[in-house]
C-alpha cells in the first residue's frame, strides 16, 4: 500500500492532465456557443451534472467515497 506522498508522486501528473482535459472541454463548449451565438447549453442536464461533479470534488472535508458519489450522480434516478 502506498503512503500519501507516494500517491501524489505517482498520480499528480495524470491528475493534472485530466484536469486540463476537463478545462479544455468546458472552453470548447463556450467557444462553440460563442460561434453559434447560442447560450452554452446551461440548461443541459449533462452540463449540470458536470458542474455538480466538479463541486463535489472540491469539498475538502469529506469521506473517501467520491467515486461512488460521482457514479450515483451520473446514474438514472428512480
Amino acid at each position, binding site marked *: 500500500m502506498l503512503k500519501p506522498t507516494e500517491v501524489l508522486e505517482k498520480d499528480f*501528473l495524470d491528475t493534472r*492532465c485530466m484536469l*486540463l*482535459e476537463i478545462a*479544455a472541454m468546458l472552453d*470548447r463548449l463556450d467557444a462553440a456557443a460563442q460561434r453559434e451565438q447560442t447560450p452554452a447549453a446551461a440548461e443541459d442536464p449533462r452540463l449540470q451534472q458536470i458542474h455538480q461533479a466538479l463541486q463535489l470534488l472540491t469539498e475538502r472535508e469529506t469521506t473517501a467515497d467520491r467515486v461512488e458519489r460521482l457514479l450515483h450522480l451520473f446514474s438514472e434516478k428512480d
Partner: protein
Amino acid sequence: MQIIQPHYHGIARTAQDYQRMAMAGVVAVAEPAFWAGFDRKYPETFIDYFRQISEFEPTRAAQYGIRHFCWVAVNPKEAENPPLSYEVLKHMPEFFDKPNVLGVGEIGFHKTTRNEEEIFEAQIEMALKHNQLILIHTPHLQDKVRGTRRTLEVLAHMKVDPARVWIDHIEEHTIRAPLDAGYWVGFTLYPITKCSPKRAVDMLEHYGSQRILVNSSADWGPSDPFTLQECILEFRRRGHSLQEALEIFHNNPCRFLGQNPKFDIQPIRVQHEN
C-alpha cells in the same frame, strides 16, 4: 493522407514504428538532437550520435519509404555543462553539409540557468553564421512559462529572422507571445505531460493554422508517434476538410523545413477529377 512528423526521435524507437508510421501515411520525419536520458561525459559521444542520426537513421527510415531529416545541437539539459558543450560545438559545422541536416536544434532552456543561456546563445550565433534553421525546445511543466519568456528575450536581442525559428512544446499558456512575434510554434502531443490531441485541435481552431507545426516528439519516454494520427482524426471528426488537414500536417512542415533547400518535399493540394 500524407503526413510529415516534424519532431521524432527515431533512435529511441523500433523499426516497427517506422513500418506502422508508413502504413499510417507518414512520408517524412525530422529528428532533432536530444537528451539521451543520461548526461554524456565525452564530446565524442555526441559526435557519434550526430553520425547516427545523419548517416544511419536515414537508412532505417528508407526501408519503409520514409524520408529522414535531422538537426544537430547540444540539448538544453546537457548545455548545463559549458566545457563539454563548447567541445561539441566545434564539430557541429561539419554536419551542416550532410544531405539530411536541416539546422540547429533542439536548443534552449531546461531549467533556465545561466549556463544553459550561454550555450543557447552560442548555438544561435552558430546557426546564424551558417545560415541554418533553428529549433527551440521550451521547458517542461512548471518551468515552461519562465523558460519560454526568457527564450523570447534572448531571441529578441539576437538578429534572428523569426520566420526561420520554430519554438516547440508550446501550450495554451505560452502560445500568444511567440506567434505574435512572428515565430513558428509547435504543439507536442504527449500522453500526459504536454499537449493532448484534443487540446491541439482546440488551439488550431482558436489561432488558425498559420506558422503552426504539430508533432509527437516520440522518444524513449512515455510517448507515442500515433498521437499525430489521433490529432488528425480529432481534427477531421470536427468537420475540417482533408485539404485543411493537409495544410497543417503536411504542408506546414514543408513550408518551415523547406526553407532549407535540402528538405525538398513540396506542399500538396487535393484535386478532384473533372
